[in-house]
């Protein structure tokens, strides 16, 4: 594709190899992409220069992520591909509605589990799955967080299959991360493609920190007073520290560690300041449940605040997300989400699940064991892509091992068919090539719901790879939700102006 010795970035041989491509359909631009594609191809070799500009902007802006390495943690420059991923407004409107529907049902489910457990009594959700869930917190039974909302912030991973269907792959309800990179990616593309932003109707993403602040403020146990809001971070050595600091700064909230807070005899949470204790109303916690409060959970936690659960149960502080919300994060629970939507809302799910076989069920388990070659097997409660078995790539020893593990502990395994993830054009070593990707939008649930315009697109940079995690060499793209009809109208308008002069 690159002329020998020349800087020309060509697109002529681009071929997604039978996968659904986000930008091109048999060599032609998809409906929302023609303006972007025309522009990008017209850049020629200048595209490589824009990539270079983007990378130096990322260094100058100090956008980093932390990876654990020998002898301590290292801050690496955030990996970013300059070619945006485009979604039409029309498609996004449907997806956003589906995500809101999903989170409403998930919140009703969590509240139900910690309350009357009607869904269990009605026989629509197996009782044994509750007790055996790694993220079910008995300490939360009977708690009633404000507005009945447990999962205020959700990051759901979306993937597209070869026929173009968008699926929810998982819901992250504990401490979903990545939203700061969505915002920074946009800041970078605005610098790099300033000329294009004028002409296209790209939906802004900058509203997120403000919406998050509104949501957090609305949870304050002291309505009517200016709430004190803090972001609770495990500290500077956590891999998402950049994001914690970023969100605190954008919202004007205090970035605190566990040692900065204490719970007094009045069951209220206070922050230690140089002027003395200041009462805290809302804690946006980026610390896992088990480390939140050494008195309620792990007694050895140095990251939490002793008595925090007591203060929360007394209604004196809002915890976002609420402790225990991760029960719906379980991949076995995931398999039930479509049913939950039907049960609680009486609606059909707007976005499908990836078909999932839960191994605790004998029928489904025998199907899984008989079809290992064609399935992906996942542990129910790992995150970050750990412990995943891909049948098509596994040796017979590995297959035997996973079979033994499933039989020993069926509750903690699910299996899904191997998806052929969609691709998008990505600049690798000066050549535009197809790479697999996913999408993580962020959904806020408070008195009203909010879905980001697009989300964080993650790309597997290696050819054929489907691993998008940045710690494992994954990259990212800016995600553009744009309205193709507006673009067309503008182009028409320009044509008309031209003919008149």
């Amino acid at each position, binding site marked *: 594709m690159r002329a020998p010795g020349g800087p020309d970035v060509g697109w002529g041989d681009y071929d997604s190899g039978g996968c659904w491509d986000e930008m091109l359909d048999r060599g032609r631009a998809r409906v929302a992409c023609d303006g972007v594609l025309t522009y990008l191809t017209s850049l020629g070799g200048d595209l490589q220069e824009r990539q270079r500009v983007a990378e130096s902007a990322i260094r100058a802006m100090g956008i980093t992520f932390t990876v654990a390495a020998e002898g301590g943690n290292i801050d690496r420059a955030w990996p970013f591909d300059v070619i945006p991923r485009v979604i039409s407004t029309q498609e996004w409107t449907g997806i956003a509605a589906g995500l809101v529907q999903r989170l409403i049902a998930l919140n009703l489910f969590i509240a139900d589990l910690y309350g009357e457990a009607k869904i269990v009594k009605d026989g629509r959700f197996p009782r044994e799955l509750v007790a055996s869930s790694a993220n079910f917190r008995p300490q939360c039974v009977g708690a009633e967080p404000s507005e009945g909302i447990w999962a205020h912030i959700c990051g759901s991973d979306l993937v597209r299959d070869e026929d173009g269907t968008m699926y929810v792959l998982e819901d992250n309800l504990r401490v979903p991360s990545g939203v700061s990179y969505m915002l920074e990616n946009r800041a970078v593309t605005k610098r790099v493609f300033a000329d294009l932003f004028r002409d296209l109707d790209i939906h802004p993403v900058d509203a997120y920190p403000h919406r998050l602040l509104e949501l957090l403020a609305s949870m304050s146990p002291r309505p009517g007073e200016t709430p004190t809001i803090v972001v609770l971070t495990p500290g500077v050595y956590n891999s998402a520290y950049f994001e914690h600091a970023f969100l605190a700064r954008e919202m004007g909230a205090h970035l605190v560690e566990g040692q900065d807070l204490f719970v007094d005899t009045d069951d209220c949470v206070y922050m*230690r300041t140089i*002027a003395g*204790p200041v*009462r805290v109303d809302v804690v946006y916690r980026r610390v896992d449940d088990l480390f939140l409060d050494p008195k309620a959970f792990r007694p050895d936690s140095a990251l939490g605040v002793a008595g925090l659960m007591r203060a929360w149960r007394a209604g004196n502080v809002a915890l976002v997300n609420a402790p225990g919300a991760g029960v719906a994060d379980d991949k076995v629970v995931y398999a039930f989400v479509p049913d939950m939507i039907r049960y609680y809302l009486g609606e059909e799910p707007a976005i499908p699940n990836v078909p999932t076989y839960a191994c605790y069920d004998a029928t489904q388990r025998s199907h899984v064991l008989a079809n290992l070659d064609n399935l992906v097997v996942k542990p129910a409660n790992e995150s970050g892509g750990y412990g995943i078995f891909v049948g098509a790539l596994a040796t017979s020893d590995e297959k035997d091992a996973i079979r033994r593990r499933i039989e020993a502990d069926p509750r903690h395994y699910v299996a899904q068919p191997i998806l052929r993830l969609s691709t998008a054009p990505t600049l690798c070593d000066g050549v535009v090539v197809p790479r697999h990707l996913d999408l993580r939008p962020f959904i806020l649930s408070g008195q009203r719901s909010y879905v980001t315009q697009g989300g964080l697109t993650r790309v597997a940079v290696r050819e054929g790879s489907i691993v998008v995690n940045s710690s494992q060499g994954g990259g990212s793209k800016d995600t553009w939700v744009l309205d193709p009809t507006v673009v067309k109208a503008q182009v028409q308008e320009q044509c008309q102006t031209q003919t008149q002069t």
Partner: protein
Amino acid sequence: MPDADTNLKEDDTMLLSRVAESVYWGGRYLERAEATARLVKVHTELYLDLPKSADVGWSPLLAVTGSWDGFRTNHPDASEEDVISFLAADADNPGSIIASIAHARDNLRTTRAMLPPTAWHVLNQLHLWAMETRPESIDRRTRVRWMDDVIAQCQLLSGVVTGTMSHDECYAFLEVGRLVERADMTTRVLDVQAGILMRQLGDGAEPYADVTWMSVLRSLAAAQMFRRNASVGAPGREALRFLLKDPRFPRSVEHCLIGVSRALLELPHADEPMAGCARLQTALEDVGVADLTAATLHGFVDRLQEGIAEVHDLVSETYFRTAPTGSAVLAMT
């Protein structure tokens, strides 16, 4: 009914104790790095000026920096290479120049959002550069230049902070940290080198006496300013007065204390630490430099050092060790 100004004041007092403490230590470590670099540089130059028979050795550097004990555990004798390496380039010596820079960086990293971006950039570069070039701090041919570079970068950082950071509470803690450390260093130098300053200048008996007392001033960057201010008379004693009591020279103990009090004025509940400063200033005023003997000077410097440690403790207790339970004050209501 609080007026608008009082409200603003309340907002200001939301500085976290942990952040304040980090910034304070950031200020102390930066000052320590710069002061140690200057000590090493001046002592190296002095060593080159003096004849072998003067036998100054390198141990005074260990005495001034209070690192005798740490040094002795791993080094049998105070050779030039060992002492300089220990004070400049040894990451395991918490008081070394590179360790001080690293500690300053660690402390200010978590509070990065409070500083001007350039300040963080300069500090980070200084850290990376110092780690990379540390062998140059030991070799006598490159040592003085290396120390000059450390001093220059610390001064650059100091200038960036003073010139572009809001002089708010956070800045006040940086300032208090810097000045407490600086006052401490000045008293340490005096403690060890007082003998040189007290010595009556004989007639040729000690041909290098001038060189040594000037080097005491130089190690506190005070030589030029002293010459501009000094009256005639016993120059050693005048230098002592200058380093203790001159209200205008930024590294005199008196000036540091004035600066600490001024920074404390920006902070809430400052009565106790301010009183600690005032007690020290009174002690300084009361002492007659002309009447001091070598023995009484030593006792007086000890008292100053205790006073400085007390100011540090009072700042810690007032701002960094907020009572954990049972004494909650609703500062916002």
